[in-house]
């Protein structure tokens, strides 16, 4: 088969056809995967909510609301058992991680006590900062059952009550920062 000549019109046609076909195929793939992607994101979020607040009967994902704090906003997922609020799952974040953004889901009891914390997203160093994940070390357990009113949310090096992860003071500080942001938001009108 003879090679197509590199004339202007041939080049134009070739590129138009190739990009057109690619775009069409991608459109179909996007449509086909849109649903499952939403579902898997939702599932992950719901699992995190379930992990951090006491048992609930409502759908916190549908009753979520945002609260503004210090130039950003955190999302609240109220957990209710019947009509009574049993806890708040707060999706919070910090930019102070060793590798930037860290997202946490912090569960509070109605009186402000931390019930449990789950890590949603982070890019911390494997083997060091990633010990903030529950499966990798006991770091996050020390927050459970503590009320930030009396439990100072900063690492011991900075005069707080949190034992930092060994060799990961920056990640630990960032973690405290994110939890503090959630607590501040809760106190500043997150309760409903």
């Amino acid at each position: 088969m003879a090679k197509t000549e590199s004339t202007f019109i041939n080049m134009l046609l070739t590129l138009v056809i190739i990009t057109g076909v690619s775009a069409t195929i991608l459109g179909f793939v996007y449509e086909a995967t849109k649903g499952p992607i939403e579902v898997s994101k939702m599932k992950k979020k719901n699992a995190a909510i379930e992990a951090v607040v006491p048992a609930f009967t409502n759908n916190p994902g549908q009753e979520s609301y945002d609260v503004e704090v210090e130039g950003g906003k955190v999302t609240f997922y109220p957990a209710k058992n019947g009509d009574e609020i049993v806890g708040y799952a707060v999706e919070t974040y910090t930019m102070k991680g060793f590798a930037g953004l860290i997202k946490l889901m912090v569960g509070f009891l109605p009186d402000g006590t931390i019930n449990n914390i789950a890590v949603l997203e982070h890019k911390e160093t494997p083997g060091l900062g990633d010990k903030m994940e529950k499966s990798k070390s006991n770091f996050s357990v020390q927050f459970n059952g503590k009320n930030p009113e009396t439990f100072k949310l900063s690492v011991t090096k900075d005069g707080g009550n949190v034992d930092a992860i060994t060799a990961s003071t920056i990640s630990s500080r960032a973690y405290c920062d994110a939890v503090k942001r959630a607590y501040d938001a809760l106190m500043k009108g997150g309760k409903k």
Partner: protein
Amino acid sequence: MNQLQNFTKGFIKENPVFVLILGMCPTLGVTTSALNGLGMGLATAFVLIMSNIVVAAVKGFIPDKVRIPSFIVIIASFVTIVELTMQAYLPDLFAQLGLFIPLIVVNCLVLGRAEAFASKNNILSSAIDGAGMGLGFAFALTLLGGVREILGGGAIFGNKFIEGDGMLVFVLAPGAFLALGYLIVIIKKLRKTA
């Protein structure tokens, strides 16, 4: 060259990572564990096979002067398909590799095979070349990831067999260079004696 040789050359003789030294960005970036390496390797292998097939199929229609942009569009389409599919059905793996999946587009291995092999050979040979090279790449990434995971974390495929932390430097960026360098030396030695 028969088809069997065409397939097996990707593993040792022309291994894209250890011999051709192509696709270094994902090689060094994602191989913090054997599982990440394997996932990235298989994603790249899929893109490589599909793009090789399509490039070989349409090579006659593409004018020489626009062949590189055409190849890039074809490769980018497959990469996006992989990205969306992985996000939908393997969210955990995607969370680990997310950043590096779109970068398969600029992996010189994929474009390199399209340009150097698929644009000159028929569809069957190109598919086999893509499979061999892709699996060779996956093999190399898994091996590198495994070595780093064992030395750095005392684990393999996430199963811990040594308590404690291991030599953390191997999980960090410098460890990637160190481990890769020694693996290249070992592979060179093997190729000489074989």
